[in-house]
């Protein structure tokens, strides 16, 4: 008898426990609206309102679609995306960098092939600057839609340059001369905040591209065939190390953050700073026209094309698990419409990949010029830390700090890169 009562009690307890766990999931789809989950990486107060406004506008134009928006900041989203994609609640539209970062999701069949949708709507496809769609493609198919078209440029403080009668350099030798003059005049020639090592990796992105033959480099950046045996990779690191050894960089690069260094540059404490196009607006706000910019100078004995610009688009991929691909595409079209792209450029000063959206009327003069640079370039050198396999990127990222504090040589680093590239080759089918 007692055992029976016990069993009943236990069953009731079990019911209570299971009851607790399942009671949370029922109140979402009470309306018959289509819910699209949208994940981006700009929770900052200066950018978030733009997305809120665009989403609101889209919802009012499409009353049967509801957008559930979420934002995770730049650094954490690198980890979270991987976890989210493995879970059951995958967002329909997600932020992604272009290049290998997106391609690994393509290899895992996590990203939807967007080629048919782009082919279907030629006007939409043609509205993009071609160079901005290409980095999101894999084996000739498009997997991502760019939102921004970002390039990396050296900005310089005109006041300091004028004081010493300097001009924006066009070649690497001129660049070294400028640095030398600045150093001798007691200025800090180059500002760099390498606490998060992507900052120095962006230098190496351009140097690798300029030093190594395009075909060889693409072969190496492909996880299936990467070897990194070209001598250009070592030379690229030597050139970066040289900037440091000659004292052209500021002190304490490895313990200063990019944002802090940016404030120091704005306060006039350094002559040059390597920044992204999206940061031009901040530079203008701080230096008020008293600045200029130039792309990474060309290198005479480099084997790569000297007419490339460092940079890449970033944008969105669609989950292959989405139940509403049509609506997701509808939203992406809305997000990249000419109207909203003009708004993007105007409201937050980002360079848009939409043809003609970033023009001198909407954007800062320098941003429009920057986009022109990228349109005229032969190609883009995509960020080294998102364009190679994550494990290769990790070796580069953690070693670049040691290169700059002098505890590792370029040869030692390239050996590690080669070893990990070999390992990756054997793992990627």
């Amino acid at each position, binding site marked *: 008898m007692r055992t029976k009562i016990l069993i009943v009690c236990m069953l009731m*307890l079990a019911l209570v426990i299971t009851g607790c766990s399942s009671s949370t999931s029922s109140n979402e789809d009470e309306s018959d609206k289509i819910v699209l989950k949208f994940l981006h990486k700009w929770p900052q107060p200066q950018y978030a309102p733009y997305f809120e406004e665009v989403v609101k506008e889209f919802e009012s134009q499409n009353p049967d679609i509801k957008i559930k928006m979420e934002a995770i900041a730049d650094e954490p989203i*690198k980890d979270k995306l991987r976890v989210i994609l493995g879970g059951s609640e995958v967002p329909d539209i997600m932020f992604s960098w272009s290049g290998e970062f997106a391609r690994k999701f393509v290899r895992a069949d996590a990203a939807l092939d967007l080629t048919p949708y782009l082919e279907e709507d030629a006007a939409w496809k043609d509205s993009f600057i071609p160079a901005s769609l290409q980095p999101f493609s894999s084996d000739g198919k498009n997997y991502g839609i760019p939102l921004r078209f970002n390039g990396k440029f050296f900005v310089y403080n005109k006041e300091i340059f004028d004081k010493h009668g300097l001009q924006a350099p066009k070649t690497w030798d001129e660049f070294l001369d400028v640095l030398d003059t600045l150093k001798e005049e007691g200025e800090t020639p180059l500002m760099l905040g390498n606490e998060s090592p992507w900052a120095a990796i962006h230098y190496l992105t351009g140097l690798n591209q300029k030093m190594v033959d395009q075909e060889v480099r693409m072969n190496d950046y492909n996880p299936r065939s990467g070897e990194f045996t070209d001598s250009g990779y070592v030379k690229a690191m030597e050139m970066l190390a040289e900037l440091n050894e000659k004292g052209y960089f500021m002190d304490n690069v490895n313990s200063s953050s990019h944002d802090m260094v940016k404030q120091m540059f704005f306060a006039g404490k350094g002559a040059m700073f390597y920044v992204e196009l999206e940061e031009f607006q901040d530079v203008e706000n701080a230096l008020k026209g008293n600045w200029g910019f130039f792309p990474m100078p060309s290198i005479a004995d480099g084997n790569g094309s000297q007419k490339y610009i460092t940079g890449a688009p970033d944008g969105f991929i669609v989950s292959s698990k989405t139940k509403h691909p049509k609506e997701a595409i509808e939203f992406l079209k809305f997000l990249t419409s000419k109207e909203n792209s003009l708004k993007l450029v105007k409201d937050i000063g980002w360079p848009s990949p939409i043809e003609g959206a970033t023009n001198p009327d909407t954007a800062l003069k320098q941003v429009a010029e920057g986009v022109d640079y990228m349109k005229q370039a032969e190609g883009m050198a995509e960020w080294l830390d998102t364009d190679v396999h994550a494990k290769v990127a990790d070796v580069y990222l953690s070693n670049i*700090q040691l290169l700059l*504090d002098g505890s590792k040589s370029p040869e030692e680093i390239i050996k590690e890169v080669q070893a990990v590239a070999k390992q990756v080759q054997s793992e990627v089918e």
Partner: protein
Amino acid sequence: MKETYRNGRTAFLFILPALLLILFIVFLPIVLNLYNSFFRWNSFEAGKTFVGFDYYVRLFKDPVFFTALKNNSLYAIISLICQVGGGIIIAAILEDKLIRRFQPFFRTVFFIPSVISIAVVGLMWQLIYNPEIGLVNGVLNVIGQSEWAHSWLGDSKTAIYAVVAVSQWQYTGYMTMLFLIAMQKIPMEYYEAAMIDGASKINSFFHITLPQIKEMILVGSVITVIGAFKVFDEVYVMTFGGPGRSTEVLGTMLYRSAFRNDEMGYASTIGTIIFIITLTLSLIQMKLGKSGQEVE
């Protein structure tokens, strides 16, 4: 009635809920983790490839693993000296008759750091260590020791010590609190008797206080040592293993493998190793703890 007590089946029914909870929440993940460490897989891809003991072999050849082990051990040793050793000394001083009046004030002040969120602490110390505007270098400059001024977190030789120091700052007060509680349980008569016999304060510390709080010392040591092998957030917030890999600990190495390099299998391998280390340490604790009781 008595039959029910002897009824093994009924007894089993009573412990069943707790047993199930422990099985599913504690033991199943451990077994799954071990199983997962034999496969190459990542969080967003469906398939798994069996690799056997490959990851274990790789781990024991990986120089970063030994850096991490070294850093974890450093963490453990320094924490033992500062948190347990320092904690006892501070607690003994605070328990002294002369200072006891102010004890609540000091107790609170020392305890405050341990209730601050680690993210806040990490960011705060990053600023304190900052070579340009930080407090540490500022003080060194003021007292005329500017040659000691240093990029504390930016130099691969000093970074790990800088991170370990933050943990000492944060948790010594917590340990002090534990020892204070233990010391307050010691009957005053012991000290009075010792005083009458002419024992000095140092003598009564070594011959009364220490033996009386032996159990707490054991518990405290084990908490700090196991904590040192599980440390993650301090390092993650302040350096994320850098510069280079110089401050990598097992926790950050696991995180990097899982969420940066997409190698869940390797991460599971590291997880298994952390489990073995902490399990061994706990077993040692249990053994030592028992022998402690026997002495009493």
